[in-house]
């Protein structure tokens, strides 16, 4: 009893000692996260929240500008060999927050860590996609780390050798997995690396002043030693993890938050508010139709189903978050072509909602199959929006296509991924988010035998185009490559291999005195370097 009293007294004293929080300075931006940072280690992190915080405090060779194009950051100048295989980066004179200079070896060390099988980074494949010499072999344990095609010529010169000329290589360098890491600093942290402000070395616009693993509050301050510090207007950023969307919105209304993400019905409530904004995200949601299921191997049946539901209604009535109907397999605002235009600006659209045409395909398909009715189950993860969309699809399909019966099967996302990967499903509502700004980040998924080709669709001509566009001859001719990718997309769509449903939009509220936050659909989603809070 006595000890318990003592404990309570102690707790009370500790609580009182903590005192009141100091008032936040005017130039500190208060931002909501809806999930904790999973890791501040750039080579380990895999999620958007971690990427956002890392990119605020660490800068790589290139960063994205407001329009989403790569611009030099730590790289002062870049020269490319004529064959497009050797990149030589000359680094700017910049320093880490521990005072040490940022050197070419910091990149070599970080990238070796990325592909090191002992580190087992979940994003190691991105070094292979970048085409860095021997990246895939090292990740598979077939070559030593030293064989990686990234070499520090001297402190200011980094040479990167590629296996193939990757057209989006510079763009990929903005991806957080390629952020630098000082070997000396990393080793000095022991096994505590990236777990506290002291063990996170920063060279970006901000430095970490408050952080612990899975923290609910993360505080960043302006980095006075940042090479571009004069352009950084904010005094800092304060991230607050709030998972309950109603509480988040109340905090926003109370003035404790400057940026908040809306969920579900809130979007409808606030969509006319002047501080409301729609942000286009990169995620494409689509239905995967397993072609090993009786009936779904028939292209007419697939073409019927892909056209038979009202996509506009999914976006406008079900989601209401700024999502747009998807009549394509490669989303908007993802990639810019050799012509300087967005991929979608010159590519055709496919599989638009057309219930009459759907019915024609349906009747033809049924006749070919010699049946009068079909019934399928649709697997869907147990989130509110996914279930709502699935129920709408079911109603529309059953209404438009006579003889079709759909049963919805809800399960946790991890489970859905498993059954779809194993092919133990008929129809599945799924999504894909882009890893880099090129159509192949989507199109490669649907090549024969690919893990994400859950529908088991196969077209050898398609496989050839994608192979050539990623590792082959087409990489040498950007213009021809671009056209070939459009042709490949047309093949997926003509076969209705997937039924595109919508491209995800995010609804956010941003205080009217805040401007200059840059939103991107690939890699780092929100950039604050140029943000201003008046």
């Amino acid at each position, binding site marked *: 009893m006595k000890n318990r009293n003592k404990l309570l007294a102690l*707790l009370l004293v500790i609580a009182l000692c*903590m*005192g009141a929080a100091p008032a936040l300075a005017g130039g500190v931006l208060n931002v909501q996260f809806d999930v904790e940072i999973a890791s501040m280690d750039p080579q380990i992190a895999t999620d958007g929240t971690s990427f956002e915080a890392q990119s605020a405090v660490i800068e790589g060779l290139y960063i994205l500008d407001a329009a989403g194009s790569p611009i030099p950051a730590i790289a002062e100048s870049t020269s490319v060999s004529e064959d497009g295989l050797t990149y030589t980066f000359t680094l700017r004179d910049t320093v880490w927050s521990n005072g040490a200079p940022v050197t070419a070896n910091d990149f070599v060390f970080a990238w070796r860590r990325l592909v090191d099988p002992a580190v087992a980074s979940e994003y190691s494949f991105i070094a292979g996609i970048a085409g860095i010499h021997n990246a895939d072999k090292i990740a598979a344990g077939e070559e030593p780390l030293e064989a990686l095609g990234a070499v520090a010529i001297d402190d200011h010169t980094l040479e990167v050798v590629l296996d193939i000329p990757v057209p989006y290589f510079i763009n990929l360098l903005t991806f957080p997995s390629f952020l630098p890491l000082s070997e000396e600093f990393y080793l000095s942290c022991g096994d505590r690396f990236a777990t506290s402000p002291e063990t996170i070395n920063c060279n970006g616009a901000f430095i970490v002043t408050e952080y612990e693993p*899975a923290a609910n509050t993360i505080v960043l301050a302006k980095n006075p030693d940042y090479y571009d510090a004069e352009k950084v207007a904010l005094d800092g950023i304060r991230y607050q993890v709030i998972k*309950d969307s109603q*509480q988040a919105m*109340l905090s926003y*209304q109370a003035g404790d938050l400057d940026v908040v993400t809306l969920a579900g019905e809130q979007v409808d409530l606030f969509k006319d508010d002047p501080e409301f904004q729609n942000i286009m995200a990169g995620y494409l949601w689509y239905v995967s139709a397993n072609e090993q299921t009786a009936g779904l191997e028939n292209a007419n049946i697939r073409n019927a189903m892909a056209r038979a539901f009202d996509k506009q209604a999914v976006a406008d009535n079900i989601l209401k978050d700024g999502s747009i109907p998807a009549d394509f397999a490669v989303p908007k605002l993802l990639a810019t072509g050799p012509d300087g235009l967005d991929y979608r600006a010159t590519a055709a659209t496919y599989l638009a909602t057309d219930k009459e045409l759907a019915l024609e395909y349906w009747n033809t398909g049924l006749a070919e199959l010699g049946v009068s009715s079909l019934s399928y189950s649709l697997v869907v993860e147990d989130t509110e929006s996914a279930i709502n969309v699935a129920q709408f699809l079911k109603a529309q399909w059953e209404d438009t296509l006579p003889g079709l019966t759909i049963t919805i099967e809800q399960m946790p996302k991890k489970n859905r991924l*498993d059954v779809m990967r194993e092919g133990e499903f008929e129809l599945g509502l799924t999504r894909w988010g882009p890893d880099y700004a090129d159509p192949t980040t989507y199109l490669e998924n649907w090549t024969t035998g690919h893990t994400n080709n859950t529908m088991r669709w196969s077209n050898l001509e398609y496989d050839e185009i994608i192979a050539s566009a990623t590792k082959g001859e087409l990489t040498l001719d950007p213009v021809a490559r671009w056209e070939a990718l459009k042709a490949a997309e047309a093949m997926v769509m003509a076969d209705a291999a997937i039924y595109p449903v919508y491209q995800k939009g995010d609804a956010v509220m941003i205080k009217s005195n805040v401007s200059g936050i840059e939103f991107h659909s690939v890699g780092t989603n929100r950039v604050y370097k140029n943000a201003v809070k008046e």
Partner: protein
Amino acid sequence: MHKYILRRIGIAALTLLAILFILFALMEFMPGSPFNDEKLSAAQRALLDAKYGLDKPMPTRFINYVINMLRGDFGVSYNISKNTPISDLLKTRLPISLRIGGQAVLLGAVVGLLLGILAAIKHNTILDPLLTVISVLGISIPSYVFALGLSYVLGFQLGWFPMLYRQQQALQSSVLPTISLSMFTMATVARFARTEMLEVLGSDYMQLAETKGVGGFALIFRHALRNALIPIITVLAPLIVGLMTGSLVIEKIFSIPGIGQLLVQAIQSNDYNVIAVLSFLYSLMYIGIMLVVDILYGVIDPRIRLTKEANTVHE
């Protein structure tokens, strides 16, 4: 008494081991794995499984885990906070959950008792039915409804307390979660205290005490309350356990970096080690509280202690 306690502790330890084994078995049957993100290829998943020893059969993993646990190594988180030792996560989160839970028990028990006693003493006035209505509301309204209501009124509209938990304002910002959490305990204790007090107040020995001139405060607190306390402690134990589950929702609403929130997230992301440690911890608390309650009976009521001792001797 000592032998009895030792035996109870022994049984508790074996129960915990069995719980841990069942947990491992259940996680084995859980769909998915920590590493089945859509971005990962089969080779990468195999690499990650090997790195964390997930490629080994369940019994081996269980034995390894128990051995490591005895050494104080609870493993690392796979998803929530990648590669962070779980002991690190607990170090900051467990005290917060315990503190808010403790505050809620204290508030609930004390206020509940006072309300119950008040209702019993003022048995024949309007106060009694009024307090009964309040406690029925307290029992039937879920804690998260209180949480959202309190947060909206006292936090947002009146601005008296912070809406979200802040480490720098640990006391002020724990007021709303504490009240929301304590409601159920408060109402239940109040109801029990009222019934027990009424019974005790009507008993012969109380009337005797009253005629002997023991009056007012001493009569209620020294004589009546002590006798009314035993059944109340019996209900308090499961209530404390109930608080732990209530904290899962309350922590989410007030953004409290505690272990309740961690458990929910761990289950959603198949973060095996976090699930194992936290479920183990909850079981430990449950069994521990039951043990303490059993021992407390003896302290409060000598009759129970004597009977138990007699039983132990006979065995």
